[in-house]
């Protein structure tokens, strides 16, 4: 079913919206959640929570042209929160690995002097990513949005892990420069 029609179902408070969302995007959402949580049961729960959240957010939102991204964002947030707060999930180490990498984008000490608005920062990160070649942009998103392992990214692109690590290392440095220039850090 066309995304716009699915959104119409949400707007009409028709529960078929959830069924059609699941039919069309369920696999993608479970896959993204599993990549973050590495737990089948949890990823299914996160998927279901995502539909509930979408139900609550539409309206006022009407993501007719970006429903898959809209749902991806929700499932990522839910999955990440589960990872951080659910001690049963053995993903703390992986989250630490990712945050350690991202600390490189922040000043020494890992905290900005003045807290920037998340959405403003996300906008700057988006602008930064748009300036990157497509392949690098997607690799960065795979690592820090989808939280995919470096080994998996390397396999996907046929590059050595070192090359992916180096590519990410350089992008983090460039991002830090960009954030600094914009006065966000």
């Amino acid at each position, binding site marked *: 079913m066309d995304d716009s029609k699915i959104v119409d179902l949400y707007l009409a408070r028709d529960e078929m919206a959830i069924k059609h969302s699941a039919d069309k995007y369920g696999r*993608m959402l479970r896959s993204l959640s599993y990549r973050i949580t590495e737990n089948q049961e949890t990823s299914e729960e996160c998927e279901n929570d995502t539909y509930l959240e979408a139900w609550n957010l539409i309206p006022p939102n009407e*993501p007719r042209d*970006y429903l*898959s*991204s*809209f749902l*991806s*964002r929700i499932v*990522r*947030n839910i999955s*990440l929160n589960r990872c*951080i707060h659910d001690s049963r999930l053995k993903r703390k180490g992986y*989250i630490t690995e*990712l*945050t*350690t*990498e*991202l*600390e490189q*984008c*922040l000043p020494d000490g*890992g*905290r*900005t002097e003045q*807290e*920037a608005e*998340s*959405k403003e*920062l*996300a*906008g700057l*990160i*988006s602008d930064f*990513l*748009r300036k990157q070649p*497509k392949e690098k*942009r*997607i690799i960065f*998103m*795979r690592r*820090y*949005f*989808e939280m995919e392992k470096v*080994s998996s990214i*390397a*396999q*996907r*692109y*046929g*590059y*050595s*892990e*070192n*090359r992916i*690590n*180096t*590519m990410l*290392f*350089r992008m983090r440095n460039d991002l830090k420069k960009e954030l600094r220039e914009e006065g966000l850090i």
Partner: protein
Amino acid sequence: MNAEDLLRTMSYVDYDLIEELNISEKESDVKRSPRIVIIAAIAAAALAAGIFGINMIRNFSFGDIAVTEATELTVPYTSEESMARSMSGGDIYIGPEEITVGDKRYGMVDINVRDKYQLLLLDEDDVIRKEDLGDLIGEVTDCRDPDMLGHKVYRRKNATGDEPVVIFGVDEGEEHYEYYVLIFDGNDYTEDYQLLYGER
């Protein structure tokens, strides 16, 4: 804001970027990386011809890090096997790259020795030791991979005998060091080199 907040903030990058990612995910489900196909095709063609083998790069080491560990593949293998090895993280990765250093053009073979490679990343003092470096040849001025631009290229110190001329590519970043094995155009391995880059 700390790094965990930054990780959360990534959820709020613009929708078009997430959309692009979702589309690429669908594409990669149905399409193999062309690069892998190219690599496998080159390796398979070369091996089928019985000329190119890992022998030409097996008999040297970087200090304590023996590249001979990567030479299990001297037994001819099929293109499917080579692809599987590459796709799985690879015992050895053969990248068809060419770079220009000064006025010379080089072919490059990037060796990725699984465990040893991690060692390279973890212990940077052992990666490219100053004492392993010979003459500075120049900097990379042209390469398909823009990340290679500006790398300093050195000849391996005391390269002798039938050892191919080996040049280190050094990324002088703070954390990561890279090394590349370059087969020097014009040496005894020219035939292999030309086979590997037959279209030149």
